[in-house]
């Protein structure tokens, strides 16, 4: 989990926030509330996690509970990976 969070944070800092300061993003920060990610940014994050973690995200999964913070994302990815391995 920790590694997933680190990877996600690095991606968001470099490609969404354009900031190399590690303190600019907490794992719990809500992307929507803090204006970190807009509707296009979400799709960039989805593209990234699909490729990086080899999962497939369905349209109905595009909801804040899955995507709205590093923690939410990590939980979502973890459960997807878990589901995949069970199949």
């Amino acid at each position: 989990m920790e590694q997933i969070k680190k990877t996600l944070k690095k991606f968001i800092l470099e490609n969404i926030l354009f900031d190399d300061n590690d303190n600019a993003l907490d794992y719990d920060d809500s992307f929507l509330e803090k204006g970190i990610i807009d509707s296009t940014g979400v799709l960039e994050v989805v593209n990234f996690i699909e490729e990086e973690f080899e999962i497939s995200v369905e349209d109905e999964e595009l909801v804040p509970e899955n995507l709205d913070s590093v923690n939410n994302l990590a939980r979502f990815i973890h459960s997807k990976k878990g589901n995949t391995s069970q199949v």
Partner: protein
Amino acid sequence: MCGIAGIFNLYDEKEISMDTLRKMTAIIRHRGPDGFGFYKDKRAGLAHARLSIIDLDGGWQPMHNEDKTIWITFNGEIFNYIELREGLISKGHRFHTKSDTEVIVHSYEEYGTDCLKYFNGQFAFAIWDKNKDMLFIARDRVGIRPLFYTSVNGSILFASEIKSLFADERVRREIDHRALDQIFTFWMNIPPRTAFKDIMELPAGHYMTVKNGDCRVMQYWDLDFTACDSIKSEEEYAEELRELLISSTRLRLRADVSVGAYLSGGIDSSVITALIKKYTNNPLRTFSVAFHDEAYDESIYQKHMIEYLNTDHSEIRCSYSDIGSIFPDVIWHTEMPVLRTAPAPLYLLSKLVRENGYKVVLTGEGADEILAGYDIFKETKVRRFLEKNPASICRPLILKKLYPYLENSPTKSLHYSKAFFDVDMSNYPDRYYSHVPRWDLTSKIKFFFSDNIRDELNGYNKFDELSSLLSNNMDSFDHLSKAQYLEIRTLLSNYLLSSQGDRMAMGNSVEGRYPFLDYRVIEFCCKLPPNLRMRTLTEKYILKKSMNDLLPESIIARTKQPYMAPDSRSFFAGGTLDYVGEMFSENALKRCGCFDVRKTKMIFEKCRKGLTIGFKDNMAFVGILSTQILYDLFVERFKADSLYDKNISNERIMEVA
């Protein structure tokens, strides 16, 4: 079509440098490669670079009246010159040429500055009236032809392009950071401000007089939607629109050279091409731009029209690298930062036209503005509807319907599209309702501005300047008309007709003509009931109705696809283009000083890796790159002398006093 330039001494007589006039003309010779003409006395110097289209032998400029007390240098066309000429002859005026230029001179003699209201055309001109000791410069109603001016050491300099003003070494070349703020919000500069400090643009529909050292800028025309009526039947409106478009197309085929047409695959250019075919004897020659990348390509629809009308057609197919490699030339001509690469393919298209021996093309520009074709008008309607009916069960369906053609549509995820559409309007007056989401999104790219620029812009309110461009009347327009008015007064005049219009065509010595922007057509559309312009979410409803029998079903039934070109991807196909790497180098970024080096380096990396999919990052990248190029070309490396060919072969000096 041509380029004009000139110098006017504000207060007293002093020598005007012929050398400077020549440099000012030579640098815009792409606008008029067929010959240069000059006039000068101790008060005024007028210059003209000519692209001969009407009266090939007699149309040399600067031109004068009977007793040489009035001189003109003119860029553009007065399409109704034949009718105006007859009227002026009956009033006793004597003509020496068959040109439209001479019609302006005599109209001015007859009506003074009021002459402008008689012209149906696209023009920018300067008249030096020795009798009144007055300079009179003017631009057409919607700003099809450009005109810039500045003052230096007691003289006014004017020209078709900014680079011509820079040919006078006394003129300062510095990026205007307030204009940068405007462009990185509205996609355009708000005239009179331009991308360069102290260089002014005469706004569309305005004229300026200079007399006794006093410059007065006056508006002579504006759009008026207050008189919307619904007296006639839908059929009558459709018929009237068709008649007007036939007339405006016919007028725009007046030329002593062959006239071609652009075919985009959309309904607007298809209408114009079909009208030429059906109602004129002009041999139909068409041109189009296609893309290797299918996401942007409309060639399948272009093919429908080519086969339907059986036109003699040529096409240029653009790759990513075509756009990337031509981009610095594009910025040389736009003379302002742009947030999209969309002008670049149009530059390649006009090159194709010129290579085929054509100097004039008709296009469909303007229809989306006057007949409500753009998505922004639909989006506005949807937002207003949802605001009133927040619980509407249709909400998901409506949102999905908005951008069916976008791969990465903001409406793809409903949860996130809510954030996109529920815009906080509390800081804006209702007149800006339609455009606030676009401006808000675009403004986010100012994130990349350097701290210095941010400090400098602190407290600057660009909305005051925007407001000065707009009529107070607009607050009484209906919702749709308000949005259309805003779009026309901002983006049509100051981006579409300039960066994507005049500059890209004239860069290759090609003149664009726009039947939808005939002022009679515009004024007619302003009076149409709004629901004939847009019916529910069907754009350009009345146009489709009136042209139903002229076009194939596939074109009429098509959902509008906005014209776009690949953005940041164009600069990294097959490796980073050398000049792009240089423009984003720490050194170059620091010299220009407009952007934060650290952040800019990071977006460069993101684009280089191909991770950029959204509008915002693409706009940021293209905006930064074009600003860097602008600085490099016009501030750092500009040398008028190196662009000045002293051996001008085809030159006429009309008079030197």
